C-alpha cells in the first residue's frame, strides 16, 4: 500500500489536532469530575504508611491514623482517642481513658486491647528509644475495656507532647498486619480511608463510621508532582487546589509571591521552625573566641534576608524558638547588623588587616557548609552572608553538598559554620534542645548545633528534669547561656507557606508542619 506524501502530512496534522481537541475536552470532564474532591500536591509518593516506619509523608499518615491526644495551637494538648488522662507518681504513671464508640476503618473496635497492641509495637523497643516514653517504658496494664495504665521507669519529659506525634505513636488496626505482625495495609480510625495509592497519587474517601466531625467534601486526592515549578503551574492551571507545607510540597517565598500576583490565596504562618547558624569551634580555631562568634552574628543582616530572600514572609530571629512554641523563653529582638561593631570586636580579638583579616599569619577563613536539599534556599542565604562577612574582613568559603553528604559531614563535624533547622511543633523546645544541643544524646542523623558538656549539658538536664512551674525558669537558663556565649546565631523563623485556589475556602495553616490541613476547608463548587 502506498501513501501519498500530502495524504500523510494531512493525516498527521489531523491526528495532532484531534489529540489536542481531546485534551481540551478531557480537561472539562476532569474539572467536572473534581466536584467534592480536594486535590493536594505532594512532592513524592506517599510511601509505606506503616505508622512505625519512617518512609511515609507525615501528612498522609495524619489523614488516616489518629493519636491518643492532639497537639493544638500554642502547644495545648487536646483529646483525641483518649478523652482524659492523668499523670501521677511524679510523672512515672499515666492513666488513660479511651474514647468509646470508636472503630477502625475495617470495623475492628478501638478499645484497651487494641490500644495495648499498638503501644507494645513501639514502647520499650530500642529502635524508638529516641522518644522518652519508649526509652523509660516499664509496663502497661489494661484496667478495663476503656482504661489503661502505663508505668515508666523514670518521669517522662513532655509525655503528652510525645503521644501526639505522627509516628510511631498513631493507631493501626490490629487486623491490618500479617501473621508475623508486619504492616499490611493502612487502616486507622481517622476520617479518611485510602482507596488507592501508587507512584502518581493517593486517593482517599470519607470514612463513614468516623467518630468525629467529617470533612464537608467527600474525596481527597494527593497528586505526586516532584518539581516545585510544576506544582505552581498545576495550581495556576486549575489542576490542583492546594499546595504547600514544608514536608508535603514546599513553596518557596518567591513562588508564594508569584501566586499572590496571579490572584491566588497565599496563606503565610510565621511558623515554628527556626533557621539557626551553628559555629564549630572544634574545627575552626577562630570560633573558640566568643568575640569572633559575636562578630559573625552581628555581621549578618537578618531583616535584609527576611525582606529580600524570604520576600517579607519570614521574621528575623533573636531566639532559638519562636513565641509560637510553649516554653520558648523570653523573646529578644533579632540582633541588628552593625559592621563597625563587628569589625571592632574582631580587632579586639587580634584579627587585623584588610581586605581579609589575619592573626599570626593565618587568614580569617571560615567554611560554611550548605545543603539546599535539606534547607531550601540556603545557598542564596549563604551567598548574602558571604558578602556581608567580606565587608568585616572574614573570608567565607561556601561548600554546597547534597542530602547524603550533609548527613555525613554534619555528623563528622566537617564544617566551620553550618545551617540547622529546629524541629518545630510538636517536638520543640525539648526535641531540638536534647537532640541538637545535649552532648550525651546521640542523634546520629543531623549532628549537633552546639555542645558543651561542662556548661550546657547540666542546664539542659535541669530543664528536662523540671516539672510544673519549674520548667520555665530552668529552660530560660539554657536560652540565657546560649545568648550570653553567642553559642548559636538564630537567623529567621521559617514561614509556613500555603497557596490555594478560590475553590478552597476556610483554609487555615496546620498547627504543625506534620499535619494535613484538611479540617476547616469547604469547597466552593
Amino acid at each position, binding site marked *: 500500500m502506498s501513501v501519498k506524501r500530502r495524504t500523510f502530512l494531512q493525516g498527521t496534522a489531523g491526528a495532532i489536532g484531534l489529540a*489536542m481537541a481531546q485534551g481540551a475536552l478531557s480537561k472539562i470532564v476532569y474539572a467536572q469530575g473534581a466536584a467534592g474532591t480536594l486535590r493536594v500536591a505532594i512532592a513524592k509518593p506517599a510511601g509505606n504508611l506503616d505508622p512505625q516506619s519512617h518512609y511515609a509523608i507525615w501528612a498522609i499518615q495524619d489523614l488516616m491514623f489518629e493519636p491518643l491526644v492532639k497537639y493544638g495551637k500554642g502547644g495545648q494538648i487536646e483529646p483525641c482517642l483518649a478523652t482524659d488522662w492523668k499523670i501521677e507518681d511524679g510523672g512515672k504513671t499515666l492513666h488513660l481513658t479511651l474514647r468509646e464508640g470508636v472503630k477502625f476503618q475495617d470495623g475492628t473496635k478501638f478499645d484497651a486491647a487494641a490500644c495495648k497492641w499498638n503501644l507494645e509495637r513501639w514502647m520499650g523497643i530500642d529502635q524508638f528509644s529516641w522518644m522518652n516514653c519508649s526509652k523509660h517504658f516499664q509496663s502497661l496494664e489494661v484496667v478495663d475495656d476503656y482504661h489503661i495504665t502505663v508505668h515508666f521507669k523514670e518521669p517522662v519529659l513532655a509525655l503528652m507532647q510525645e503521644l501526639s506525634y505522627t509516628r510511631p505513636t498513631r493507631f493501626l488496626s490490629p487486623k491490618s498486619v500479617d501473621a508475623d505482625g508486619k504492616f499490611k495495609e493502612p487502616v486507622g480510625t481517622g476520617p479518611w480511608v485510602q482507596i488507592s495509592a501508587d507512584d502518581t497519587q493517593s486517593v482517599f474517601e470519607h470514612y463513614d463510621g468516623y467518630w468525629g466531625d467529617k470533612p464537608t467534601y467527600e474525596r481527597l486526592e494527593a497528586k505526586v508532582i516532584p518539581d516545585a515549578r*510544576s506544582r505552581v*503551574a*498545576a495550581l495556576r492551571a486549575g489542576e490542583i487546589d492546594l499546595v504547600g507545607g514544608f514536608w508535603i510540597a514546599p513553596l518557596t517565598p518567591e513562588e508564594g509571591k508569584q501566586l499572590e500576583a496571579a490572584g491566588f490565596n497565599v496563606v503565610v504562618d510565621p511558623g515554628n521552625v527556626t533557621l539557626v547558624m551553628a559555629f564549630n569551634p572544634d574545627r575552626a580555631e577562630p570560633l573558640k573566641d566568643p568575640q569572633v562568634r559575636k562578630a559573625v552574628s552581628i555581621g549578618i543582616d537578618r531583616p535584609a534576608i527576611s525582606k529580600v530572600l524570604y520576600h517579607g514572609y519570614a521574621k528575623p530571629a533573636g531566639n532559638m524558638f519562636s513565641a509560637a512554641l510553649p516554653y520558648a523563653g523570653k523573646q529578644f529582638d533579632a540582633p541588628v547588623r552593625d559592621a563597625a561593631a563587628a569589625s571592632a570586636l574582631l580587632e579586639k580579638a587580634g584579627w587585623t588587616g584588610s581586605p581579609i583579616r589575619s592573626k599570626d599569619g593565618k587568614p580569617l577563613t571560615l567554611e560554611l557548609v550548605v545543603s539546599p536539599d535539606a534547607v531550601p534556599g540556603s545557598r542564596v542565604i549563604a551567598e548574602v552572608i558571604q558578602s556581608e562577612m567580606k565587608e568585616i574582613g572574614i573570608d567565607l568559603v561556601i561548600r554546597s553538598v547534597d542530602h547524603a553528604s550533609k548527613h555525613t559531614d554534619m555528623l563528622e563535624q566537617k564544617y566551620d559554620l553550618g545551617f540547622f533547622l529546629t524541629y518545630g511543633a510538636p517536638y520543640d523546645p525539648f526535641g531540638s534542645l536534647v537532640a541538637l544541643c545535649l552532648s550525651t544524646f546521640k542523634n546520629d542523623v543531623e549532628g549537633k548545633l552546639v555542645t558543651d558538656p561542662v556548661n550546657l549539658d547540666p542546664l539542659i538536664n535541669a530543664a528536662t528534669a523540671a516539672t510544673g512551674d519549674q520548667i520555665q525558669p530552668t529552660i530560660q537558663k539554657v536560652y540565657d547561656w546560649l545568648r550570653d556565649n553567642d553559642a548559636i546565631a538564630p537567623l529567621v523563623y521559617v514561614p509556613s507557606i500555603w497557596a490555594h485556589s478560590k475553590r478552597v475556602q476556610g483554609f487555615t495553616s496546620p498547627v504543625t508542619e506534620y499535619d494535613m490541613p484538611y479540617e476547616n476547608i469547604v469547597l466552593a463548587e
Partner: protein
Amino acid sequence: MFHFISKRLKHSLVLLFLASLVCFTLVVSAPGNVAVLIAELRGAVATPGYVEQVAEEIGLNKPLLMRYVDWLGDAVRGNFGISYRTGQDVSADLAARMSVTGILIAGGAVIAILLSLALGFLGALWPYRVPDRVSRGLALLGASTPTFFVGALMIYGFSVHFQLLPSFGFNGPQSWILPWLTVSVLPAAVLSRVVRVGLEETMASPFVLTAKSKGLGRTAILFRDALPNITPIFINALGTQVGLMTATAIIVEPLFAWQGLGDYFLAGVRFRDFMVVQACLLIFLTFFILVNLIADLAVLLTDPRIRRQWS
C-alpha cells in the same frame, strides 16, 4: 552482514562491561554514607550500632570488588536487588516505569523526525531565502534553549494560559503531548540541520546536474534523488539523538510528574540508592548501544555502498 552484526555485538558487550564498571566507580566514590540515610528512614534516629547493622545488611562493608561482582552476577540474571530508599524490588519498579519512558522517547522521536524533516526540507526548497532563514533560526533556538526552560514554556503556554493540555501526569494521550514536544525540541533542531546540510551537499552532486538537465524540478530531485542519499547520515544522527533522549528524560519526567526511569534515576542519585542508580545507568547504556546498533543495521540496509563493504 553476519560478520558485521557479530562484531558490533562483541563491541557492545565490552562497552557495557566497561560502562558498568565506570558507573560503579562513580557511585561508590560519591561522598556520604547511605547506611545513615537508610537507618534514619527506618527509625528516625540512627544509632552507630544500627548504622553498622544496616551497612552489613546491604553489603557496604564488603570489599569494593566483591560488591561489584555480586551486583553484576545478579544483574546478569535480571535481579537488580532491593531499593535502599523504598525497600521495593528494583526489577519490578523498572518494569513498571519502562513503559512510561518508552512512550516518552518513542513519541519524542516521532515528533523530532517529523519536525526535523519539515524544517530541513523547508530550508532546502527555498535555499538562502526567508523559509531557510526561519528554519535555521528555529534550529538555533531549539538547540540552544535548555530543555527545562522549553518544558516550563510549554506548561505556561498550553496549560496555564490556554488551559488546553494537562500540566502534569501520565493520563492518556492528551497528557503525552507536552512532554513529547519538550523532549523532541533539541533532537529536532540538531536533525533539521543534518537534513538541511545533507540535502545541500547532495544537491551539489554531479548526478543532480544530470537530473536537472533532464528537466526535473528542484522539488522532485529533492524528494526522489536527494532524500535517499541523506537517509544513512540521518539515521546515524537519529540513533545518537534518540539515545541521548534518556538524559533528557531525567529532566522532563520530574517536570511533568511522569514516574519513568528518568525520575527513578534522579530520586536514586539524591538518596545514593546504589541499586537504583546502577540499574538505571545500565538500562540507559544498553538502550543507547542498542539504538545505535539498530541505526547501524538500518544504515546497512539503506546504503548499498556500506553493504558492499561488509559483504
